[in-house]
Structure formats: C-alpha cells, structure tokens
C-alpha cells in the first residue's frame, strides 16, 4: 500500500517539476521555484539559495489547465526554447528535517508506537505515553522549544478521521 502511495506522489511531483522547468504563463508563480528541491514530502529551500520575498500566487484552475496544455505543446515543439524564470514561492515549513527523518525511518519509530516523541534533528530526545512528560524531558535535555508528535500505529484496515 505504501509503495503504491509513493508511486502516486512521485508521479504527481514529477508533473510539478515539469511545470517548473517549462514555465506556465497563466500560472503566475506556480511550480517548484529555482533554488528549491523536492526532497521527500516537502520542498526544501536549497542552502544558500537567494530567496526573494513571497509573491502572490494566482490559482485559477481553468486557466491553469489551459495554460498547461498550451505550454506542454509549445515545449514539445520547441525544445531549445529557454525556460522562463519562475517566480519564487515561500514553501518553508517548520521541522522539515524532522518530518523527513520520520518518513525515512519508520522502522525506528515503530518501537515508539502509541507514544509521544520529541525529535530534534535526527535524534530522539524523549518519548513516552504522556506528552507533558515528554515536553518536560526534552526541556531537561536542553531543548528550549521541543518538537513533539504522536506515533500512531499503522493499520491499513483502519481509516483515519478527525477525532
């Protein structure tokens, strides 16, 4: 199930990278900006990249689809045409490194199922069934602002909803 999900995501992101390389007139700043790379599930600003301030993102889906089609055709007809610069979009999220580590280390996290975990970088600082205890334990280890999350057991027969 997981590998199928990954394939779907990879296919979608492959499509998005294509958009970024070709540029799409009607999409404004849509796509993965230069200076960013799609690593895992979040797009990371590349270290040292010269990030410009956030720009407005215009999303009109009818225009988007039409623009995609037109640009794809144009691109296939003129492969030598220079790619248009794509405006940058701020996509930074908190704890990208930790979220990526969670994605790539399920075997380690499996032993912490049904527990709260404080993760700093790639190091598990504290864990336990009570989030308050985990927060305090992390602070005792010198983490002023800990990142804590709950490791839910994976069961393909269980479907998640809000509460």
């Amino acid at each position, binding site marked *: 199930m997981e590998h199928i999900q990954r394939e779907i995501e990879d296919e979608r992101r492959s499509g998005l990278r294509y958009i970024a390389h070709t540029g799409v007139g009607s999409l404004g700043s849509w796509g993965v900006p230069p200076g960013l790379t799609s690593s895992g*599930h979040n797009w990371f600003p590349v270290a040292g990249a010269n990030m410009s301030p956030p720009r407005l993102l215009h999303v009109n889906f009818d225009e988007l689809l039409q623009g995609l089609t037109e640009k794809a055709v144009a691109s296939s007809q003129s492969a030598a045409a220079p790619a248009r610069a794509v405006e940058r979009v701020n*996509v930074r999220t908190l704890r990208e490194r930790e979220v990526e580590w969670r994605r790539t280390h399920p075997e380690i996290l499996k032993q912490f199922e049904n527990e709260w975990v404080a993760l700093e970088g790639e190091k598990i600082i504290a864990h336990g069934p009570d989030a*308050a205890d985990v927060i305090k334990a992390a602070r005792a280890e010198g983490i002023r602002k800990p990142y804590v999350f709950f490791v839910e057991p994976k069961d393909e027969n269980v479907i998640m909803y809000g509460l």
Partner: protein
Amino acid sequence: MVTTVEYTHQFAYAHTEKEGVCPVITVSMCPPELLPDDGIEVDAFLDSGTSTSLFNGSFLRGFDIDVINDRSKTFTSTAGVPLAAYLHRVKIMLPSLGTFDLDIGFSIDPIRRNLLGRDFFNLVQIGFRENQLQYFLKATP
C-alpha cells in the same frame, strides 16, 4: 462571476506514520504569557470538519498550566462520542505567515491528533488540491 483567490504560500502534505501524507501543518504554539521561543512545535491536521480547534491537553501541562478552567466545551465526533475540553487562548505561529491568537479546546482525554479547524481557517485564506497533495495559504482571509 467566480471568485479568484491569490495565495502567497504553497505547501506539500506532510508525512504521518499512520496514513502517509496528510494535510498536516507543523505549528509553533505557546501560551500568550510566554515568549515564542519558549513554546513547543506540534503537528496539526487541517480539518474543515472541526469548528473549534482541538489540541491535546497534555501540551498545557507541559507548560505547567492546568487544563481545567471555567471555559468548558464538549466536542463530539461523528459517532457522537463526547470529548471534554477547555478553551485556552494560545498563540499559533507559522513561519512567514505570522502569529494567530486562537481559543483552542484542550482535551482532558489523551487525543492523538491535534485539529486546526474553521476558527483557524477564518483567520487565513486556505485552499486544498487533494489530487496534488498540496494546500495553499495566505495570511489574510
């Protein structure tokens, strides 16, 4: 005439152990009397089915704050199971988007997932592209 929305921020869905990628955002949260750097960072599901945001009450105990106050609320799920919670004003901070004051319900019971609901959506403009596993935000509604 269809309204066209201009967004400033675009995010990919984030990884969760249970279900792969989901509309989850990592936020910084702290009580108003504390400095932002003394808060915690937690994941929250963006949930349009939730009218008032709901977080695990243990987070407040992590700040030595008593969850129980005079602002009791009962949350109910689709199964009708009641969940006792208490409203607390906290600051929710997102990188480059800003700081938002929210009265969030903090549960007595040990819930596993934090929910950012329509009270948060009311403070921003948010859009989803489920097919692309993305959501979009701008800081003003």
